């Protein structure tokens, strides 16, 4: 095993081993547990940065494991996997800090953090997957790893939400399996490659390949919450805030979106898809999801549900960008939104969790005047909300800009209209929250004031959203610099001929 392979395995093990150890720890050993979590995530981030540097200078990282003839497990590091891996690792560190603060004095923390670590391991596996079979394997394991997190509270509502989640995820997974097997039967075993499979298959199996594409998109679309496969997401909001943050920013939804990216760019390839003419369908589904999610978000009074529908809407920006795969600018917009949306959404969920944990606030109508009590939390929330609407200089503007430029370049005027309408709808459901918090007077006592101390809430709950909100602003202000997510996305796109 050479050093590159060792690196890949270590990245996976850096969260797997702490996870296994935490399972075996007794409930009271919370210091040891926290230590393991932090060590694991810091080790992981360092290794990931080393891997990124290596990828930038052209090193090859690859591990192959033949399972059965024709099917092999492949983990490889390419620029696209580096993007998702870095995002996951950094956000995992912040979510760990947050979760430790959030679940103080909660029961079953060993189980929670154990599954938490497993979840991140599996997400990194999805990021590093080098072919569809490996991707599928880790994708299904993600469902298994996140189910216990969804039902953590153990209430009737959680169990129902968990059951729902499993139904959706396994159905999607089965469809995905059929599609993967079918595809392999036609084009043979294939690694992810920048040009997709050979175009000669299109002449013989054109319509079948189109149908397989649809099945693949359905398979990943469940996790990516494309309408009408999104039904599990709003109900899963019953989980604790760190889980929602993880589900919506880091692991599940992003894994689905990442799947769409891989299928479009690395499995089918831009040229094949253009020949097949199936992209307008993806555009239409993405556009419909964007508008549908936003309209339904308007109707929610529960804060986390509104954020859930907002996620459904925003993740489809990535699908929208991928559907314009012949426009390099649109692909840049979609890919960079992977990172940006993760940052903004996680901030919003952290803040929602803060409000719930400190003041017992779950509904937007209870949020009047809350900024006076929790100014830093609401400041972070405001920055992320403005980013969602697409106001400069937040990162949200940067992704919308590239998507808009891509739509114009491709002559898709109506997609630009969808973007503009979506921004207006986002403003419609985010700005009133900000106005309630900053400009209204508090109406009666808070539902449940659970924390009164020196700072507005526990430090471990306060610092993560401030960090991510800062990144949302900073990454936007230096978007054009060498070290921004945008720069890395440009590096990724250079590897494809679009």
């Amino acid at each position: 095993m050479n050093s590159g392979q060792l690196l890949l395995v270590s990245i996976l093990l850096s969260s797997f081993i702490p996870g296994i150890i935490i399972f075996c720890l007794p409930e009271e050993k919370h210091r040891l547990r926290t230590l393991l979590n932090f060590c694991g995530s810091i080790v992981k981030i360092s290794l990931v940065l080393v891997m990124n540097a290596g990828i930038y200078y052209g090193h090859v990282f690859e591990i192959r494991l033949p399972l059965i003839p024709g099917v092999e497990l492949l983990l490889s590091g390419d620029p696209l996997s580096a993007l998702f891996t870095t995002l996951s690792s950094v956000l995992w560190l912040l979510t760990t800090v947050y979760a430790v603060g959030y679940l103080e004095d909660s029961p079953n923390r060993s189980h929670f953090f154990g599954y938490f670590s497993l979840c991140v391991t599996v997400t990194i596996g999805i990021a590093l997957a080098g072919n569809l079979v490996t991707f599928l394997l880790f994708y299904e394991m993600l469902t298994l790893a996140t189910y216990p997190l969804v039902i953590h509270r153990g209430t009737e509502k959680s169990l129902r939400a968990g059951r729902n989640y499993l139904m959706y995820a396994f159905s999607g997974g089965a469809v995905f399996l059929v599609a993967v097997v079918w595809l392999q039967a036609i084009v043979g075993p294939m690694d992810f490659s920048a040009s997709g499979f050979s175009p000669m298959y299109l002449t013989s199996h054109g319509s079948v390949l189109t149908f397989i594409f649809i099945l693949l998109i359905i398979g990943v679309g469940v996790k990516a919450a494309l309408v009408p496969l999104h039904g599990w997401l709003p109900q899963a909001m019953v989980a604790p805030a760190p889980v929602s943050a993880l589900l919506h920013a880091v692991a599940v939804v992003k894994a689905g979106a990442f799947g769409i990216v891989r299928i479009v760019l690395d499995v089918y390839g831009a040229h094949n898809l253009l020949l097949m003419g199936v992209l307008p369908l993806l555009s239409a589904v993405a556009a419909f999801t964007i508008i549908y999610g936003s309209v339904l978000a308007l109707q929610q009074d529960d804060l986390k549900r509104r954020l859930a529908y907002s996620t459904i809407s925003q993740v489809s920006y990535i699908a929208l960008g991928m559907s314009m795969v012949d426009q390099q600018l649109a692909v840049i917009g979609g890919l960079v939104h992977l990172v940006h949306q993760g940052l903004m959404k996680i901030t919003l969920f952290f803040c929602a969790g803060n409000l719930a944990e400190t003041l017992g606030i779950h509904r937007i109508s209870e949020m009047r005047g809350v900024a006076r009590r929790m100014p830093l939390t609401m400041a972070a929330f405001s920055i992320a909300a403005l980013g969602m609407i697409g106001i400069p200089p937040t990162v949200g503007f940067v992704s919308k800009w590239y998507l808009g430029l891509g739509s114009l370049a491709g002559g898709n005027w109506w997609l630009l209209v969808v973007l503009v309408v979506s921004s207006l709808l986002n403003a419609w459901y985010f700005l009133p929250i900000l106005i309630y918090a900053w400009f209204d007077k508090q109406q009666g006592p808070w539902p449940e004031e659970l924390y009164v101390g020196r700072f507005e809430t526990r430090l471990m709950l306060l610092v993560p959203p401030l960090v991510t909100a800062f990144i949302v602003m900073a990454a936007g202000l230096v978007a054009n610099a060498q070290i921004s997510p945008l720069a890395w996305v440009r590096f990724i796109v250079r590897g494809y001929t679009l």
Partner: protein
Amino acid sequence: MTPLISETIFYALILSSAAGTPLLMLFLCCTPLRMKVMQLLPLATVPALLIALTVPDDVSVGAGWFFMSGRMGLDGTGRIFLILAGFVWLLASLSILSLFKSDHNRTRFHIFFLTAMAGNFGLILAQGMFGYYLFFAMMSFASYGLVAHEGHKDARRAGRIYLFLVMIGEMALFTALLCLVQTCNSMALSDLAGASYHPVIFILLFIGFGIKIGALPFHGWLIPAYQNAPAPAATALAGSMVNAGILGWLRFMPLGQISYPDGAMLFIIAGALAAIYGVIAGLNSKQPGAVLGGSSISQMGLITVVFGMGLLDQDAGIYAIPVLILYVVHHSLAKSSLFFAYDLTTREGKIVSHFQLAAILFTALALAGMPFTSGAIVKTAFKELAIHLGEPWYGISTFFLPLTATGTTILMLHFARILKNMNTIPKSGNILIQLVFVASFTAVAATLWIWPFADDFSSHSLEREQIFQGSLPVAAGCFLFFLLQRSVLTTKFQTGTPKRKNLFDTIKCLATDLVQKKRKERQPQNMLAGSIYRLVPYLRKIEKIMGRWQVVGLSYLALCFCLLFLLL
């Protein structure tokens, strides 16, 4: 003039301090140092003024890494706008100093005030499209905090209308920016010269920046905002932030370098309608802020007409630029002075001296173009532009200008009368606002006379013919005012500002129908709201059905059967 690209850190730091100082003070307002910082508020405007007075032309500093690549610098037009903005914001900050002593939300107001200030200074210095858009957005969104500050129902409504139109404007500008960058392949404003624009871009730019200046039909936010914002904030809005729209037009549609005759008609007609509508809207209210708002709509309408005339062809554009700049300077100084007069009168309880009343009347009638005022200079400039363009513009202006002057006179006399009739309890600590008023009045009276830039027009305005042509409308306006006063104004307009049911309220009802769950009793406002209202319960039902796992399971089974069928 070719800009000298000197990218030294020195100039970068200097130029950044214009917007950077307010931002730094804003940051300090969030720390325990806030009391000290709020007392030092006027200092935030000093760097901008110093830059405007000392930094040479042709300084241009770029930073490829900033936002989406930014460039800032000062040119002739920018310098004038910056001096003007710095002056108005300085006076407005001074007038805040003794206000808000017992206001719980003082810090919040200062934070929004400083952000709007930073945005205003930043956009004047911006030489790239993104920089302008960034600071314009910063200024626009921060102004919400100023409009809705007082927290009562009318202020909140004014804030909502404002925010709604700001979002529309932002989206229009976003789309326009996309089209522009695609057409010109560059993000620098200087590269827009000579480009040929698609008509859609003109309309989008008209909407985007027109909302800021209250162009018809997007004027709905202006009067409620000026009425409900605290006086210093309204001054900043009316005296400086509104100019960001004009500057936006100037930067994105460089007069003298592009021409678009069809688009010009849009500007001219919209401007003319606004000039007339503004007067009527202002007369419809007894609140001084609202009256001044109407006057702003009207004056900005005239400025829009000038801009439109400049778009007719490149030669007209070159001629129109000085007229535009003079009008902007004159209007800002006069309007802010009138707002300071309103603030002073409110704080002192009434007009305390004849000098004060005379100053107010002088400034007010300057807006109408009374001879020997800056208004006369500007009107002369307008007439000379019309002469330069020839028929039919000259003919129309001989009729149109006196009409608007008469209307403005009536409106301004209405304003002066409201102030004269004011009689409330005076507040203490008014020295600063008195000084501010004197300073602003001096600026109005003197600036255009001593400024070399206006030399041509000022000497022409002293010709006997011009004096005669200028006095007629003012005299007619005075006469009509006293006539109207006896009959209509006292009876019909007693009730104050009526709550107008405008387009915004319809859309708001639509949205509320969509948002609130228990809406069974409410009658839909119109056909569109009714149909969407009927649709909403269906959407909710569908959502609920999709959430049940049985549905998922059944659809999955169905899919399986399909697949099986296909395979066989």
